[in-house]
Every structure is written in C-alpha cells, then in structure tokens.
C-alpha cells in the first residue's frame, strides 16, 4: 500500500501500462509540462515525446487521430482537458470511436481511453464545470467510468487501458489532490460497483465526487438511527445492476445521487431499473437543470451538499419500505 493523490495514482497506472505495452501512447495538450492537473507529471521525460505527444488545441483531431492510431494498431490514451472541451470532439467520439467497430463488423477496433475531467471546481463557471456522464452512457459502443478515490483511479485506469472498447474516463477535478492508500496489486474489472459501507435501511448509489459526500451524509444519519448502504458505481456503463438490485432488495429503499443535472441524468436509469424490478420507493438527487454560475452564491445552487443528501435520506427514513426482504 502506498499513499498517493488521485492524480498521482492515475499517473502511476498510466506509467505502468506504458511500461508493459509499447502500443500505449498518450496524446493531448500540455502533456510535456505534466498536464494542467499534473496527472501526467514526468511521463514525457520517461517515455519520450514520441509516445507522450504534445498536441495543438485541436480537440476534434486529437480524438480523430487517436481513432486512426487505434485502427493502425496502437492503444492511445486521449487527454481532452475538460469534459466541456471534449464537446468539440463529439463527432470523433460518438460517430467514429463508438461506432467504427460495429460498422466494420469487427474488422477494425478502436481500443482507446478518453480522459475528460468532469465536475464543478474553482469558480470555473458554465463552460468548465459540466458532468455529462449520462450523454456518453446513452451512446452504444462506449464504456463510461468515473473513479472516486486514488485507489480506484489507479485500478480503473489500468482496466480502462486494458479494455478493447473505447472508454470515456471521467476524473473529478476536485478530487485531484485527494490522498489515499493505493494497493498496486489490486485489479478491478470494469462494470463492478463497490460497497463502500454496508447498511440496512437505505441503499444509496452514487459515483465520482459524490461518493465522499454521501459517505459523510451516511455517517451523519447513522447517529439518527438510519443505516445507509453506500454503493460507488465506479463504472457508469455497463453499470453493476446485480450489486445495486441485491442491495436495494435488502434495504427496500433506493436513493441515487449525482452531481450532474437530475433531469435525464443517469440516476433516472438506475432508479427506473430498481423500481421496475423491485417495486420499491426510489428517490433521485441531482443538480437542478440550471447552468453553473461563476459567483459563489450562484455556483452553490448547482452543487449538491452533504446536507442535501442527508435531507433526502431523512425524508426516506420517514417513509416505510414497501417490501423489505
């Protein structure tokens, strides 16, 4: 076990993958200086500018070139800086990377990882703060991953690089400095959720930065007699419905929390699946369908707080579970 930051853990995972497999190359802006969040620190010095490629600000071509590289036998990891900037490369992600394997009937494949840090951070306003995991989960052909801890960022990035499908890899910008123990021998499969803490009364499903906030909320309501089972989904698509359904069947109540806009969010998919299968009460908590404002009072309206999560949990506590098995 090594104590590492979320950024450092990803950097270590990538370095190991590059060490193991020379087909792994990285391309994106500012990589030679370690990337804007230092998540690539030292990689160009170690692996050279041929494999850690500094690029122009050309998101469409960064992404499209990665598709071409993948078709020609490499395993590129693409840095798109922010989810918001990745929107300049939507054709290359959605029409090309996600579809080429199918359209070519498997004669060509595009194993690649697209890193596009997500989430509200540092008073960065509407075009630097979005969480769009639901968009990508809606696109057949893509895998969508959102790690919450340094340990998971280490293990999931390795798994993503190893995956033969295009993987949208969403790190949260407010987690880069988070430190935690990383087990370098741990291997994780994509598509598996993690039970962060067991509980009896309510199943709380969440991902990314909301895992930490949900844990605080769960601990706080514990003192009020509510036992919350917290699940970190980790992979948004394919999501681990088995773990979620098993937990929800036991607790009889489900709360899904995400930082992204609630309307049309991925929480709705999970809630609907649980309701269809178990017929238990489901509640969602996501951001209002507003834009992220710059000024602190405006930004606060778009954020989910520990108190917001506690309020939803308490509201649940007052309602009986329909069917508690």
């Amino acid at each position, binding site marked *: 076990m090594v104590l590492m930051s979320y950024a450092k853990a990803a950097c270590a995972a990538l370095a190991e993958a590059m060490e193991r497999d020379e087909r792994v*190359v990285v391309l994106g802006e500012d990589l030679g200086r370690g990337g804007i969040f230092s998540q690539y620190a030292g990689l160009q010095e170690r692996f050279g500018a*041929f*494999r850690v*490629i500094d*690029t*122009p600000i*050309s998101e*469409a*071509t960064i*992404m*499209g*070139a*990665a*598709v*071409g*590289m*993948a*078709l*020609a*036998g*490499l395993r*590129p990891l693409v840095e798109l800086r922010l989810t918001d900037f990745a929107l300049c490369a939507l*054709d*290359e992600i959605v*029409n*090309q990377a996600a579809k*080429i*394997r*199918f*359209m*070519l*009937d*498997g*004669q*060509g494949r595009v194993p690649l990882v697209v890193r596009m840090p997500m989430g509200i951070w540092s008073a960065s306003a509407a075009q630097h703060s979005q969480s769009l995991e639901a968009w990508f989960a809606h696109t*057949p*052909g*893509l*895998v969508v991953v959102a790690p919450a801890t340094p340990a998971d960022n280490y293990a999931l990035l390795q798994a993503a690089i190893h*995956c*033969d*499908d295009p*993987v949208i890899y969403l790190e949260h910008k407010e987690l880069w400095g988070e430190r935690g123990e990383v087990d370098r021998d741990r291997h994780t499969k*994509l*598509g598996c959720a993690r039970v962060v803490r067991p509980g009896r009364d309510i199943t709380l499903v969440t991902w990314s930065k909301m895992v930490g906030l949900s844990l605080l909320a769960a601990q706080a309501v514990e003192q009020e007699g509510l036992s919350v089972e917290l699940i970190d989904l980790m992979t948004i*698509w*394919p*999501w681990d*419905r088995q773990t979620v359904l098993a937990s929800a069947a036991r607790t009889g109540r489900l709360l899904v929390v995400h930082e992204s806009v609630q309307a049309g969010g991925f929480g709705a998919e999970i809630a609907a699946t649980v309701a269809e299968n178990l017929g238990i009460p489901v509640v969602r908590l996501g951001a209002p369908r507003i834009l992220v404002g710059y000024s602190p009072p405006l930004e606060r309206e778009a954020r989910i707080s520990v108190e917001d999560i506690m309020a939803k949990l308490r509201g649940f506590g007052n309602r009986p579970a329909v069917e508690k098995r």
Partner: protein
Amino acid sequence: MITIEQHLALYRIMARIRAFEEAAEQASLGGVAVFGAVAAAGGAQVRGPLHLSTGQEAVAAGVCFWLEPDDYITSTHRGHGHTLAKGTEVNAMMAELFGRATGSNGGKGGSMHIADPRMGVLGANGIVAAGIPIAVGAAHAIKIQDGNQIVACFFGDGAINRGPFLEGLNWAKVYHLPVLFVCEDNQYAATTRSALMTGGRGVGARAKSIGIDAITVDGNDVIEVAHAAKEMTSRIRAKQGPQFLHAITYRLKGHVSVDQAGYRDPEERELALLRDPLGVAEAQMTRQGIDCTSLEAIRALAAAEIAAALAVAQAAPYPKPEEAYCQVQDCGAGSWY
C-alpha cells in the same frame, strides 16, 4: 512517365468503377425517399442514400495506383471508387450495398461505411471531413511504429470548409507525417456549388498556407492525376512530409442516386460529358495506337465482373437479426437495456 501498359491498367480500374457505379445506381432506384423521389413499395435492392462517384473515376484510379496493399486510405461517403481502386473485392462491396451477410462489413455499414482493413481501407465515412483526422492518426501511428507505409486521405471540396480540414492538415505538417491529402473536387457540396460557399483563393492555397506542398490537376485526366500522385507518393515515401493533391473533377450524377440534380444547368453537364474521364483516356490511348476493340474488351470484362457481383449479392443471405448485437462492445455485451 506513365507507360501505355500503366495507362491501360488505369483504364481497367476506371472501367470497373464505372460499371460498379452504374449497376449500383440501377439497383438503388426507389431505395430512398429524398429530393422528391418516392421509395418503391417493396424497397430496392440497394437501400438508403447511395452517393455515386460516376465521372470521378480518374482520381481514385490515378492515386491508388501507387499504393501498396499495406498503405492506408480513408475515404468519403462517395467512396466506392477509392475502395475498389485500393483493391477491395467487388463481390464483397456489392453484397454490402445489398445489405447481405457476405458484404465487406457484414451488412452493418452499407455504402457509406465500406471498409477493408486487410487492404488498408480504413473506411468510407458518413460524416464529411471525418476521415481527415483518422488519416493523420494512422499516419502518426506509422511514424511511431517506424513503418514505411503511407496514407492517402480522400475528401471532397465540401470538406475544406469543416474544422477537421484545418486541424488535420496542421497536424500532418507539425508532426511531418506520411499523408497524401487528396481533395477530389467535384464542384458540388451536396446540392450547392462549392465555389459559392468557399472563400479565399481555393483549395490549394489553403494547404499552402499551412506549409504543405499542393498542386492542382485536371482530375478527369487519369494521366495527369497518376503523374502527380506518383511524384507525391514518392516524396512522402522519402520522408518529405505531407503532400496535397487538388484534383478538379465533376460529379456526373446527383448528390445521391435518386437526385436528378435539377439545380444545375443541363448545359453544364453536357459539357462535362465531353470531359468524361473514360472518354478522355480512350482518346489518349487511341492516339497512341491502341485500338478501340481492346478498350471495348476491357469495358466488357468489367461489365461481366460487375454483373457476376450483382448475381452473387442477390443470392447472398441477409445477416441474422442477432448480428445487430454483435461487435457493439465487449465490456457490457448483453446489457442492452
């Protein structure tokens, strides 16, 4: 110099493309309801939009002539000619148009997505200019892998007004990549005359502004295209960086096969027919002493090959419905809801 044997070989490729396009066109009538056309009650054998390269054969033939099997191409929605000239088997191409399991893409792609990675065909593309970044990426991979292949990147005159054109050319220049950009300028972007929608001094000037050597040729003269492409591909193989070929040609058909192209002056098309690339090549070769009968024989052979491809496609089975769930993704396969 292009020898007479090479000229005949180029003509053979053009004749095969022409025969393929004409057969596909016939099989597509009634296949899609656009431009006021009505879809046939029972549908057509070739369904959906079919973008024909009739009249543009010299560009595909003249460029691909200098490519090795392991060189790559990226193509466009109007890409049958490029793919055929690069060496993809016509039976597989025709079966793909017919949506059959034996098609080049198992019926999953259709006309706009024909690909054949074993022959270096990384794919036609339904999105204008989308092949450009993919081409520079493949060229970048060649450089990283220290390979000797090159990439020919075909796109139309409409593509030069999309962002990936600028980004991709700049990328190829910055990394000094082995790419031949081929702007197959058929003068129409869908139903709009490109000149009306394109500022500045034209296609070549845009490439030159990025520092890429560019030449403009008569894209209906296969000798001119082949000559330029030969020169440019050897420069690329000599690691001299990206090159840009602007081939001016003419789209003899509408945007898609059912488009009657009533928006253009009939006289314009009549004049273009006088410069039909097959006719131009025939005149050139006749002047050099090739007799008409040997050219006719080439055309007859091409027609027979395509007729056979049609019969094979018609007889081939459709893909099984469960194929819709195959080759989507590995991680999450089975989670369709």
